[in-house]
């Protein structure tokens, strides 16, 4: 199992589009189970509704856990999905 913690740099927090990007990153490798945590809340990396329900705001610390093949790679992809592009 791999775990990575990073700070949310999107000024609007986790919203529809960047949550969708997380889901896309996670779906690239279905064998990996990805969980996203913020504070005491936890979301399935494939469930956009749960991701958005985290209410993660700008500056929040997010911990992503991946379990399965290519887990490290998937963690990188998820971080990129969240903080990679501000467009």
């Amino acid at each position, binding site marked *: 199992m791999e775990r990575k913690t990073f700070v949310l740099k999107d000024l*609007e*927090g986790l*919203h*529809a*589009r960047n949550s*969708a990007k997380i*889901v*896309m990153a996670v779906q690239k490798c279905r064998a990996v189970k990805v969980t996203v945590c913020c504070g005491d809340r936890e979301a399935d990396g494939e*469930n*956009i*509704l749960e991701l*958005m*329900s985290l*209410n993660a*705001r700008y500056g929040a610390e997010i911990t992503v856990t991946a379990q399965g093949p290519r887990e490290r790679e998937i963690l990188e992809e998820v971080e990129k999905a969240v903080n990679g592009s501000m467009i």
Partner: protein
Amino acid sequence: MFGNLKKLFGGGQEEKKVILAPVSGKAIPMSQVADPTFSQEILGKGVAIVPDSGTFVAPASGEVAVMFETKHAVSIKADCGAEFIIHIGMDTVNLKGQYFNACVAQGDRVKAGDKLVEVDLEKVKEAGYDVTTPIVICNTPNFPNMVCHSGMDVKALDPIIEL
């Protein structure tokens, strides 16, 4: 009390599993939405509405799963099992809630037709935003026989998606 419960759980409309239009306007296929997040159906299938009114109501009965602080998007876990998001306008997250008024909060129970958000549509348009509003079923894989209706004018609460 049992009468109320019956109404809650035994309502005929819920059994049909339809998602209704949250607003009046023109229903268009998702493929015509400018934002690829929606047009490529990454979040799921659905219908978009180009609204002609700023009053958005619940398209099905259920629980408000997410009401964004910016009030530009709301998602509902419907009693029929559908989990959907109503995203009012494109890139409207950047308005930070300006021109949007939320009528419900996260965790609230809503009935189909309950008012969710009031939007000053003209102001949003003047600010340069596309007001097209996708209604996306996020758990699309659970509904393999989903039928999305578009290409017509709709009133709020006209059926747009059959699950």
